[in-house]
């Protein structure tokens, strides 16, 4: 076996895309499939520079539809396979990811969001929330981690492989162009040395023995003949997902233990601006708290509601025109709380802008 790419623990400084490549190496990913698109391409480039040294593989496909389907294929063959895409590439990925939802294929895809609609900008946004959480046709089930920086990118890329393979749902690491390109320190580590065991992978086809004789038949299907059959399958998947959701959800809260004048809801890198706004608001005599869902799907609804119950008002902040807001409204349905917004599609948000918005709204 090849040497381990990451040994022990080390404090390092690099770009977020490079972090993702190192994390996938540390997570013992076997192969990456991909098609270039900024700001994702460096993940591929670092993977292709680093991977061969550790016996890992890469396939560049002709487009994102192929990248998605080959990732599905790699997983079916029993490989810990992953991809990365963004923007219009993410749009094309929804077809294969929908298949992964139907067939319960544990793919992992990293999405450093860029601006949209369409080709738009290569820089940054949080505008791929709706598509990444609910992008497939039908009603598929998937897991989405929204990261807020380099340590998250490392931790959750590793975790995504285990969540995907443990629960058998396609899993996404939702970053953004800022995280992809910015530089900051983080600790990289060998998961084994932190007691993180990578969930074993296995082929989903070509199993030994005779189906129906030595083992049950393995049905990998995305096509059903009757609506009754489909109903049973979708309901079974839904039931599995609902059961797993409480084990999967993750969140962070800041200063939400006491009564608040305002609760800031933000996810991903914008959460860091919300965290930065809290001490500034305190200086202004405003009691503010912040709740950050880490999983956008499944959403930690109960936890968000618990925090919201203690606040007079809610402020939803995102680098999009209401995609996260939609998830918040769904989660807080029935609560009598006024919701203010700071919606900046495709543009970053600073702590000061959040403070200004809150002062203006008083």
């Amino acid at each position, binding site marked *: 076996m090849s040497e381990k790419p990451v040994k022990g623990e080390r404090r390092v400084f690099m*770009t977020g895309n490079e972090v993702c490549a190192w994390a996938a190496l540390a997570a013992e990913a076997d192969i990456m499939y991909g098609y270039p698109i900024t700001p994702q391409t460096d993940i591929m480039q670092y993977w292709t520079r680093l991977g061969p040294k550790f016996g890992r593989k890469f396939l560049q496909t002709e487009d994102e539809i192929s990248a998605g389907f080959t990732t599905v294929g790699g997983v079916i063959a029993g490989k810990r396979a992953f991809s990365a895409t963004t923007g219009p590439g993410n749009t094309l990925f929804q077809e294969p990811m929908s298949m992964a939802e139907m067939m319960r294929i544990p793919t992992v895809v990293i999405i450093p969001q860029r601006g949209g609609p369409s080709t738009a900008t290569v820089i940054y946004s949080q505008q791929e929330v709706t598509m990444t959480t609910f992008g497939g046709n039908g009603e598929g089930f998937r897991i989405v981690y929204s990261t807020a920086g380099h340590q998250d990118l490392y931790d959750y890329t590793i975790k995504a492989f285990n969540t995907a393979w443990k629960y058998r749902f396609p899993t996404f690491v939702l970053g953004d162009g800022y995280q992809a390109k910015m530089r900051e320190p983080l600790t990289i580590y060998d998961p084994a040395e932190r007691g993180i065991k990578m969930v074993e992978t296995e082929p989903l086809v070509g199993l030994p023995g005779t189906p129906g004789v030595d083992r049950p038949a393995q049905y990998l299907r995305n096509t059903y003949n009757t609506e009754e059959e489909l109903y049973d399958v979708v309901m079974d998947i839904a039931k599995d997902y609902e059961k797993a959701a409480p084990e999967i959800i993750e969140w962070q809260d800041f200063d939400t233990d006491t009564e608040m004048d305002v609760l800031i809801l933000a996810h991903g890198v914008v959460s860091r601006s919300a965290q930065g706004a809290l001490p500034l608001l305190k200086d202004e005599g405003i009691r503010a708290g912040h709740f950050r869902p880490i999983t956008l799907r499944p959403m930690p609804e109960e936890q968000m509601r618990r925090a919201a119950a203690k606040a007079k008002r809610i402020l939803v902040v995102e680098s999009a025109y209401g995609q996260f807001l939609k998830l918040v409204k769904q989660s807080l349905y029935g609560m009598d709380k006024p919701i203010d917004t700071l919606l900046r599609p495709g543009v970053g948000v600073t702590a000061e802008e959040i403070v200004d918005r809150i002062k203006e709204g008083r």
Partner: protein
Amino acid sequence: MGGCIKTVRVVEAFVGEYASGKSENAINRSLELLSQNQKVTLVDLDTVEPFYTLRPLKKALQEMGLNVIAWSPEQTMGLGEAGSLLNPEMIWALKNEGSIVLDIGYGVHGAKIFNLIEGADTDPNLQVYAVVSIARPMTATKEDIVRYIKDLGNVDGLINNTHLGSETTPDVIEEGAWVITEAARELGLPVMYTAVCQELADKFANTDKMGNPIKIIRRFMPQAFW
């Protein structure tokens, strides 16, 4: 000694991996030359992803007196994601009067851009410095650095820019100085200097423990909000 002071035309290119600190060192070098009353042009040569890097700092640097050749938002209207893109001002950058500092983007491939710069192969003053940080896992060991520098092509010297952003300590910098100096010896190249951020300036004398000169740099890139 009497006589007139002759201003030497400095032409320096900073190459290196993403996050090694090329832009910081290029900006600081430009400002250093400017403080010596030289006319200085700073060129942002990232052809692949020109909308990152120096773009957000361009105006502030120009106000400090530098001639900055970099894309600005109003120039990029309508270009979209244009793929490889070269501003004509960049092709002719070496024809500028005075000293010239080139910030060569895009990691290992960036150095190939010299093929596109008029006069790069004949300019007698051109010095290429590789900015290296051992806090980047890809250039963390002597062996990795040696291999990496050989891949880069023509390099005249190394710069120890080992750091962990705001978490940098003198030990981090000194460890970098040690590993990079070892690599430089194997490559037969000088270590031009060890970069130390202003916040740690008082922790260093004129040289690091390996005897390389210390250069105090101010950090600009944290202000780059694309």
